[in-house]
């Protein structure tokens, strides 16, 4: 099919407008992180007066950024790992068995997506305090508490997406495995999982991004020692000077792993969405 002039104009206009909209903040973030402090305290300039990597060095000592970074990394990686495992098991059950309570389970799980976070923030905190005092499991202000919370946040979407993905894997493969004497778990591990790789990667990306970027619960449920980046970056603003160049340098550094990971794996994400959500 040939492209009409109208289509071409539409395409150019859309792409130019959206590129400017997307790029300006990224440009500001990147260039500001390379500016000396004097530049960010006066009127904005598109070109830095001089390029310096000083902000990237000083940002580690202005606030304990390394500690926040480690906290975020531990919380996110552990939460993602467990979330994916739990979601795989649940999605396997939902996809392969028509058990009693299957429908209500999915409805309930998905409707939790609707809950306003503020509604269960305080109750959850109180429940954690009670578990802490009654059973001695340290959930309050610890990384463990945050891990359990975050791994649940990504579950509904993950279960739903994976169940859709598993549904697309022919049951004949299960039956073939059965004939070879594989157990239910064996079928999951040796037949379903290899076939569902893109879906699993997509779910892992989603879980990682959810945990890495969460702000509300992190701001209430962490203490100075367990503080994550989402809250930690605010500490730059409480200093006597607002070190904007360091703040944006830190923002850039904490973004790079997630953005690069997402962009490398985006094909899986789109494939996962196509199989699960979009059909």
């Amino acid at each position, binding site marked *: 099919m040939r492209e009409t002039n109208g289509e071409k104009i539409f395409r150019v206009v859309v792409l130019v407008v959206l590129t400017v909209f997307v790029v300006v903040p990224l440009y500001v*973030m990147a260039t500001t992180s390379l500016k000396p402090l004097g530049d960010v305290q006066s009127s904005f300039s598109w070109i830095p007066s001089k390029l310096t990597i000083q902000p990237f060095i000083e940002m580690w000592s202005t606030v304990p950024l390394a500690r926040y970074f480690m906290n975020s990394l531990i919380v996110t990686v552990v939460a993602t790992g467990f979330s994916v495992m739990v979601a795989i098991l649940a999605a396997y059950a939902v996809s392969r068995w028509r058990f009693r309570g299957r*429908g209500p389970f*999915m409805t309930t799980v998905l409707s939790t*997506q609707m809950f306003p976070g503020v509604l*269960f*923030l*305080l109750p959850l905190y109180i429940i954690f305090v009670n578990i802490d005092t009654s059973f001695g499991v340290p959930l309050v202000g610890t990384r463990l508490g945050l891990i359990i919370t975050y791994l649940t946040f990504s579950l509904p979407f993950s279960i739903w997406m994976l169940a859709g993905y598993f549904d697309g894997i022919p049951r004949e493969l299960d039956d073939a495995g059965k004939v070879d004497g594989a157990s239910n778990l064996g079928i999951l591990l040796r037949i379903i999982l290899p076939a569902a790789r893109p879906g699993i990667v997509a779910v892992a990306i989603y879980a990682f991004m959810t945990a890495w*970027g969460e702000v509300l619960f992190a701001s209430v449920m962490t203490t100075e020692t367990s503080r994550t980046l989402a809250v930690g970056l605010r500490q730059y*603003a409480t200093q006597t000077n607002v070190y904007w160049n360091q703040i944006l340098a830190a923002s850039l550094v904490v973004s790079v792993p997630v953005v690069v990971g997402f962009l490398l794996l985006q094909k899986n*994400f789109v494939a996962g969405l196509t199989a699960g959500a979009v059909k």
Partner: protein
Amino acid sequence: MTSTTAPPSQTTENEEPQAAPPAPRRRRTWFPYLILLPALVLELLIHIVPMVTGFWMSFVELTKFFIRRWTEAPFVGLENYSIAVDINTPVGQGLLNSFLVTLAFTLLVVGISWGLGMAAAVALQRSFRGRAIFRTLFLIPYALPLYAAVITWNFMLQRDTGVVNHVLVDQLHVMDSAPFWLIGGKAFTSVVVVAIWRMWPFAFLMFMAGLQSIPEELYEASALDGASPLRQWRNVTLPMLGAVNRTLLLVMFLWVFNDFNTPYVLFGTAQPAAGDLISFHIYNASFLSWDFGTGSAMSVLLLAFLLIVTLVYLFITQRKEKRNA
């Protein structure tokens, strides 16, 4: 969420329950429950029990006097609710204002994000040199951690050192004096723009995934009939994206209406009235005044509103779907 209750599957949904599982596995029905258990326990602990507790909290007087002995907080019936909705008091007025601000915010953010996402997906539907670069670039705002993106916008919107005033006042001269973007009336514009910047790539992603499943022949056929690109979009693209659209609009609505993070990172605790989004409003009502009973009542009202909107939405879209089928 009825439309999403049953995960999309290859088999038809009205199949007899017994028909789906292979015969040998029907006997050991404990297995699905066993592997469902971790998910069930977590959902109960983190979502369901706290929600029920929050519901209970909305009926008791949970002020700072009772927060340490919260089980002894006196039952007050619907008093928290009547405080929250009494528009003759500052509390009720604040909530009403916040609700209206959030409604306008949500309609603008969802509507514009939908439009931008659709425009970008259609503009990138046809393959050309450099398409992959645009696809990647447009997904960056979505991939960026929310706080990193919003902090950058916060810097851009600073009155004296930000890029927005630099462009508007110094370079384009559309404004005579530099306005404040993060306090006062302009805060609404700011939070809308920032939220759109974050949200539209998600719409783009969903549309992009949806467009891949439209067969090229449909376009060829309608081109033979002499349909213009705009007509093709209306008669082929839009109907074929129906399923994506239904899910996307609902999900975006719920996310945007509940958005806490964007205003929290953008404004800090000094929330301007024009950007007083409801999640943040309830957070402040609970944690600043230490009145968790009223805060919970407000949350329950918010949930009830979202529930009604969702049910009405599902009812309408499903009836439409049935009519078309």
